[in-house]
């Protein structure tokens, strides 16, 4: 009996691993999730007071250490705000002169709000389940934001549910840009086992101006020759801030550490950007 159970597990593992997402095993799996997701939705609603109380205790324990960090960040942000407000005024004047449109704002990507009804506890598969699916206009690979920052993308889709792979999952990668004045671009990867840390790799060796606290956003790119090469993520979605920019690591490995802006272990509501490729023609330069 034991050998049979182990054998079945190994057969399932081998069969599933080599199959395409439209294979029978995947379809059966999605069918079962369709049945279980209303149960999860109900349980999530019923148990939300418990989650809130536990979350409150967890947040309170972390509050003291976060307080000092946030004070330091606030000082930096106040200085940056004055600088960027001045730039924003200038930009809006220039946009008006050049008749630029504003289709690259988040609201233009038709965000769909969704409740988180399930989460994965393991350190390897970092996924969440949300209560909106293809019936609500969500499609595969749609970017997902939470707390105003990128948290992942849709990787499994049902009519009434979606599975979102978080940016800390080992299969995730996104091109990202550091807002350091020069806009250095690299590939953002998770550091498996460290849910509060991401690695921005493949930075140019000249990127020595990167410092801790600088904002990291999605780079987003479009290839006019080949639309298939367009990035899945629109540009400008915040991802996090540079948490450690060691100059030696930057020179030798061309990478910096990034702390995600959203608390990925405590997501209750997210937004799915259902039209991530909205802004087509951005500028009409005379």
């Amino acid at each position: 009996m034991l050998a049979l159970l182990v054998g079945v597990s190994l057969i399932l593992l081998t069969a599933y691993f080599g199959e395409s997402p439209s294979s029978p095993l995947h379809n059966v799996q999605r069918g079962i999730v369709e049945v279980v997701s209303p149960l999860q939705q109900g349980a999530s609603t019923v148990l939300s007071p418990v989650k809130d109380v536990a979350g409150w205790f967890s947040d309170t324990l972390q509050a003291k250490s976060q307080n000092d960090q946030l004070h330091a960040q606030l000082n930096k942000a106040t200085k940056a705000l004055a600088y960027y407000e001045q730039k924003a005024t200038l930009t809006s004047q220039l946009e008006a002169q050049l008749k630029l449109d504003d289709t690259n704002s988040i609201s233009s990507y038709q965000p769909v709000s969704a409740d988180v009804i399930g989460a994965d506890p393991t350190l390897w598969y970092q996924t969440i389940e949300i209560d909106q699916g293809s019936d609500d206009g969500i499609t595969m690979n749609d970017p997902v934001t939470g707390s105003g920052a990128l948290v992942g993308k849709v990787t499994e889709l049902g009519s009434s549910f979606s599975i979102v792979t978080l940016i800390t999952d080992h299969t995730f990668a996104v091109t990202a840009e550091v807002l350091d004045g020069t806009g250095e671009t690299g590939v953002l990867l998770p550091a498996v086992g460290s849910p509060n840390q991401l690695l921005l790799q493949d930075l140019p060796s000249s990127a020595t101006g990167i410092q801790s606290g600088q904002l990291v956003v999605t780079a987003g790119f479009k290839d006019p020759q080949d639309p298939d090469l367009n990035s899945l993520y629109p540009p400008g979605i915040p991802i996090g801030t540079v948490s450690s920019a060691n100059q030696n690591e930057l020179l030798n490995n061309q990478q910096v550490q990034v702390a995600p802006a959203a608390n990925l272990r405590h997501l209750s509501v997210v937004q799915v950007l259902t039209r991530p490729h909205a802004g087509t023609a951005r500028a009409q330069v005379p």
Partner: protein
Amino acid sequence: MNVTGSSLRLPLRLILLALVTVVVQESAVSQISIFGVSADITPLVVMSVGLLAGSLPGAIMGFGTGLLVDTVLVQTLGVTSLLYIAIGYWSGRLRELRDPAHGLVPLAAGAAATAVAGLGMTLIQFLLGVDAPVSLLLLQQIFITVLVNTLIALPVYALVRRVVQPVLPDDPRRRRRRAYTTGGLSPLQRPSQRLGQISRGSP
């Protein structure tokens, strides 16, 4: 007819227990962060069933719970069930070979079960291939998860025992041990009576 009904009671309870465990785990427990990690009650429930019901029910419960976890999270099927079979089987063997009676056994078994689940998942992921850099903090995270799970192992075991114990077939070895610890093999003789006899015989 009654025999069939009573023999089905244990599998039915185990199926219901597995379903409730997985739904509660994914809907609530996974979303509660303690020291930066989430508790995982699924290996604890499998371990508890193994300790209470034996190796074969433990292994079957492990297979079923693991399969349900992989299905609900739309993950590679078979990975979690493979690990949970081992947890259920070995906790069942611990009961069959040693029959531990100490109240803290579920605590140690819970820690071991969580460690097997965490390290086993890491090993399988490395075998399947990892696309991203792996931080050494992974080991720290596994260690913290083991600690958190150890803290909740006793209440989880108590809950599982409440669900499973009433439908378990009576084990002769346990009955014998219970008889010794409660003062005698005869149910007609109370421990107070035995003590009274001893005191009368002594000078």
